[in-house]
């Protein structure tokens, strides 16, 4: 298997991406500020999740970091190269997979990859081998000769990822890589991303989904209206917003109050927020760790309560925002995402 080459001229600070005070304004001085002084770092070999609602500035950030858009102020250095002063060198080290697949629809999957290989200065033979290899890896060998326009959404996204991988980039930008994909395809994309990281790539991932960020990223930056409103490790941030919620449906709805009391009596951190909702026949228990979850479930078993259904629920992006800022997301029209685990 091929290895992702670390850029030898990479940054000496251990950060593959360093962004300071980045500003981008659209539509003149009175226009909207897509980015309003963003600072962030992505350490080499890690995944940074950039979490934010539609219109938060995520895509603008990615477009600046991939030299498609020029910032109005601030600096951005990727793999040691400045986006404004060294765009050509920078382009050699990055791969970009956008929300909209950037492959040629009229070309077959194989021809798309071969073309990109040649554009990246691979020899004919190497471009051929690399295309075959990546199609195999992304389970697209059977569709290799078909034009990309006949691909399903998930296949297209996989082809797009494969296309980004041809040059073995040391830094990969994934701009909402699973938006609009069904859960199965989403898992396939996640697996691939995890594999790339295991091989040493640095990834900047933008997403609207808390679950995606938790699956893939080790660090998170939450942005809203072009500003960073929180950043830190996934666990730190989770602790901040209260972690998961355990949902329990008792076999006998009449036992709801007794169960709630039993849990509250344990005195565990966090579970004091337990709520019984008789209308739904559900008990909601905030939990901070797997140990707490085990303890709660174990307790209910010991006390002989019958449980019909059990599940956990991650906070939605809306809830994260509420916890951090005390207000709803700036873009009110995004649907609250129910993410079942």
């Amino acid at each position, binding site marked *: 298997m091929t290895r992702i080459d670390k850029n030898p001229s990479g940054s000496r600070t251990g950060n593959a991406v360093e962004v300071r005070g980045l500003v981008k304004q659209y539509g003149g001085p009175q226009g909207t500020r897509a980015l309003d002084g963003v600072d962030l770092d992505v350490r080499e070999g890690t995944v940074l999740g950039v979490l934010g609602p539609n219109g938060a500035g995520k895509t603008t950030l990615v477009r600046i970091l*991939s030299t498609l858009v020029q910032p109005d102020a601030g600096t951005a250095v990727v793999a040691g190269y400045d986006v404004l002063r060294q765009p050509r060198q920078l382009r050699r080290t990055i791969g970009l997979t956008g929300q909209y697949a950037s492959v040629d629809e009229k070309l077959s999957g194989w021809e798309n990859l071969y073309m990109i290989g040649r554009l990246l200065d691979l020899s004919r033979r190497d471009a051929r081998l690399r295309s075959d290899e990546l199609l195999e890896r992304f389970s697209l060998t059977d569709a290799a000769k078909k034009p990309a326009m006949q691909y399903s959404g998930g296949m297209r996204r996989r082809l797009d990822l494969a296309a980004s991988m041809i040059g073995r980039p040391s830094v990969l930008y994934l701009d909402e890589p699973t938006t609009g994909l069904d859960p199965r395809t989403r898992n396939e994309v996640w697996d691939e991303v995890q594999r790339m990281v295991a091989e040493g790539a640095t990834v900047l991932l933008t997403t609207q989904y808390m679950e995606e960020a938790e699956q893939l990223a080790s660090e998170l930056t939450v942005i809203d209206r072009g500003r960073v409103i929180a950043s830190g490790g996934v666990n730190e941030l989770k602790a*901040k917003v209260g972690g998961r919620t355990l949902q329990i449906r008792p076999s006998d709805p009449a036992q709801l109050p007794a169960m709630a009391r039993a849990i509250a009596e344990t005195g565990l951190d966090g579970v004091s927020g337990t709520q019984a909702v008789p209308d739904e026949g559900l008990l909601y228990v905030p939990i901070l760790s797997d140990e707490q979850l085990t303890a709660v479930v174990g307790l209910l078993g010991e006390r002989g309560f019958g449980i019909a259904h059990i599940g956990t629920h991650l906070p939605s992006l809306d809830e994260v925002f509420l916890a951090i*800022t005390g207000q709803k997301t700036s873009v009110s029209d995004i649907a609250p995402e129910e993410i079942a685990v």
Partner: protein
Amino acid sequence: MSTTTLPTSAPGRTPAPSPVRAGEGRIGLRANLRHIGALVRRNALQIKQDPESMFDVLLMPVIFTLLFVYVFGGSVGASLGGSRDAYVNYVIPGLMAMMGMNIAMAVGTGMNDDFRKGVMDRFRTMPIARSSVLIAKIVVEIGRMLVATAILLGMGFLLGLEIKTSVLELAGAVGLSLAFGASLMWIFILLGLTMKTAQAVQGVAMLVLMPLQFGSSIFAPPSTMPGWLQTFTDYNPLSNLADAARGLINGGPVAHSVWVTLAWAAGITVVTAPLAVAKFRKKS
């Protein structure tokens, strides 16, 4: 809004970009040619995938030749002191000039569509000269023009076209119209990159195209036109190209019209090609 930043990033530490060396990251000629080659292949494969996109090139020369020869051939031929056959030798070189213009226009509309696609973003994030995307397009379109010209000449021979000079001069006429057509493509690429929709490009192009094509020596000798129109046709580069092609096929003085046409082609390219590349670079 409250900003809660957990201490992971080190604020204030300035990033240290590697020193810029002159010429570093420049793309050499060989690499450039390889990139253009890969992109030409892309455009050619698109045609293979979508053969209907060749209909214009295949049918335009057939339809134009039939229409002009049979509608105007009799009367214009008579005024040229001959018959319909005389008109064939007059109009076919003229149609060579017109074909280039029509194909160039299609480049503009196609470009506009192409540039909305995500794949252009990918090209722009790759270490290739941005001009190579445009040059590849032009190479393929010159190929399409060559096909159209071959069909036009084939139709001409069927209808009685006579080469009164040599094959070499015929080739010169074809080459000249391709060179001029290629220079026009830069104008239409620039239009395609500037205007918002393909329909807008088409609309503007038609408005420019009609007077240029008909206000020229392509279809009829300007000698019977009113003075002001003759002045216009004299300065119309399409007239020069048509006259040059006519001279190269039928014999007669060609030097002036050939040089004027080449000057136009060079002038148009020098002005519009850099503008088009700059526009492509900035488009986001």
